[in-house]
């Protein structure tokens, strides 16, 4: 009995030793990330934020691939609205694209519009322009996103609308989702920052943009502009 106990103790010691070795050897040395720095216009040394893969992709391809693809695929918004209202799935199969069988259809559109009114003018996150599509009749035909927070029902419009971006080409769904954020940030910084929404009321605009839809009702017809010009402005 005593002998057994001694053997048991010995083995327990060996196991503990192995566990200790295994534990202490499991040290991963992560080198401190060396921040790259640059000297800015004011002569200060500032850290350069490294772009994520998706942000880098958006920067590298926005002008050379994304915008040209949207212009090539763009359908006149008035025609698109009529088609989508008649049969969204058929329209999607004809000139739309979607990330997978369960996601919204996304399209590239263009048009001449008049801004009838501003929705949520006092809520900068959710501001929308109310659009009258040419030929103008004073009636609202759709909306343009002009806010800061892209809601999930519209936010993949650019990524999925261009038709050449697929999940398999990216590491995982996070990186694929980051692409959407990168494109939408580009819109926020380059397109929506040009004018105050309230200044656009009553103005005529020409635009290229993308739109995502699961059903083609007026409330859902919200286009994200990628190029926007005020006529005569």
């Amino acid at each position: 009995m005593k002998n057994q106990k001694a053997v048991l103790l010995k083995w327990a010691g060996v196991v503990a030793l192995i566990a200790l070795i295994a534990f202490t050897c499991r040290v991963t040395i992560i080198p401190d990330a060396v921040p790259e720095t640059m000297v800015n216009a004011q002569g200060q040394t500032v850290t350069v934020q490294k772009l994520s893969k998706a942000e880098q992709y958006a920067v590298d391809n926005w002008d050379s691939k994304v915008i040209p693809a949207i212009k090539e695929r763009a359908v006149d918004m008035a025609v698109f609205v009529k088609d989508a209202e008649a049969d969204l799935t058929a329209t999607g199969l004809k000139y739309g694209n979607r990330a997978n069988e369960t996601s919204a259809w996304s399209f590239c559109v263009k048009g001449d519009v008049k801004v009838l009114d501003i929705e949520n003018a006092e809520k900068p996150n959710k501001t929308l322009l109310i659009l009258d599509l040419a030929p103008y009749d004073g009636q609202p035909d759709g909306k343009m996103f002009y806010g800061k927070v892209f809601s999930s029902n519209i936010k993949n419009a650019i990524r999925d609308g261009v038709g050449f971006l697929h999940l398999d080409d990216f590491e995982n769904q996070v990186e694929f989702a980051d692409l959407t954020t990168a494109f939408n940030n580009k819109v926020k910084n380059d397109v929506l920052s040009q004018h105050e929404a309230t200044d656009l009321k009553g103005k005529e605009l020409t635009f290229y943009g993308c739109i995502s839809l699961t059903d083609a009702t007026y409330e859902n017809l919200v286009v994200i502009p990628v190029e926007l010009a005020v006529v005569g402005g």
Partner: protein
Amino acid sequence: MKKIIALVLATLLVLSMFSVAAMAEDKPLIVIITPSHSNPYFKTVADAASAKATELGYDFLVIQHDDDVTKQSEAFDTAIARKAAAIICDNAGADATIEPVQRAKAAGIPTFLVDREINSTGDAVAQMVSNNYQGASLVAEYFVEQMGEAGNYVELTGKESDTNAGVRSKGYHDVIDQYADMKMVEQQTANWSQTEAYSKMESIIQAQGAENIKGVICGNDTMAMGVIEACLKAGMKDVIVCGFDGSNDVRDSILRGEIKATGLQPIAYIAEQAVVQADAYIKNGKTDKEEKQLMDCVLITKDNAAKLDNFALAE
């Protein structure tokens, strides 16, 4: 005598890990590997896949890995030894699963991953997962709206080794962090567990004070169930709790006016489609689908909760 009893018990324990379907030798076998069925979500994976396998003329074998990579590795060994025609797997770790999938592939057995991604492509034939990021965005948008775009909140995250824990948390924050007045006062993992969520939430309430917590956003439904229990016990009747998965427990809680929302993962559909694609692959050597396939989630609130049952929404 004791030894014999122990031996018998151990044998029974091992046997209980395998629930074997009809053992007709002539039908090809599909092995279905999932986490523990103590979470009804994973039972749905096994049930939906095995029903479809039977319908398409296969035998099936369900093995639970309990989120233990060693058990999962043994399950793959079993599939290889039994010369399975295909493996359907809801895996135990994005990195740890790569090697077993490669081992099966080398043995000529295709693997169809459901629910959770792995960190490699070209090894599994398919990786069919819920669009966790999209689902998390939906839940976070509703959470922010219910919070009135302002206030203190707590986040409970899932198990770190599971990609979905990180994806959902990122989906939540990509929405919530756009609102300057939303303040996260605590972020902790409760490892997908209801009991852990309950005790962590209890401590958080003690530390922060019930009046200083307006909402809690959780990485899954079981944690949301633990959280709501702790909050109600602390008298926090108006707390805004959201989960993720779309379980019947949370459905009932939503209908009682307690938990506010969850993101439904169409997991029954995913599990069935994995078997359909395995069948196509077994017969034709290909599936005509991309490897990574995302299925969008649906927001469940008091408006549509009544239509939810076993991770599927009635039309």
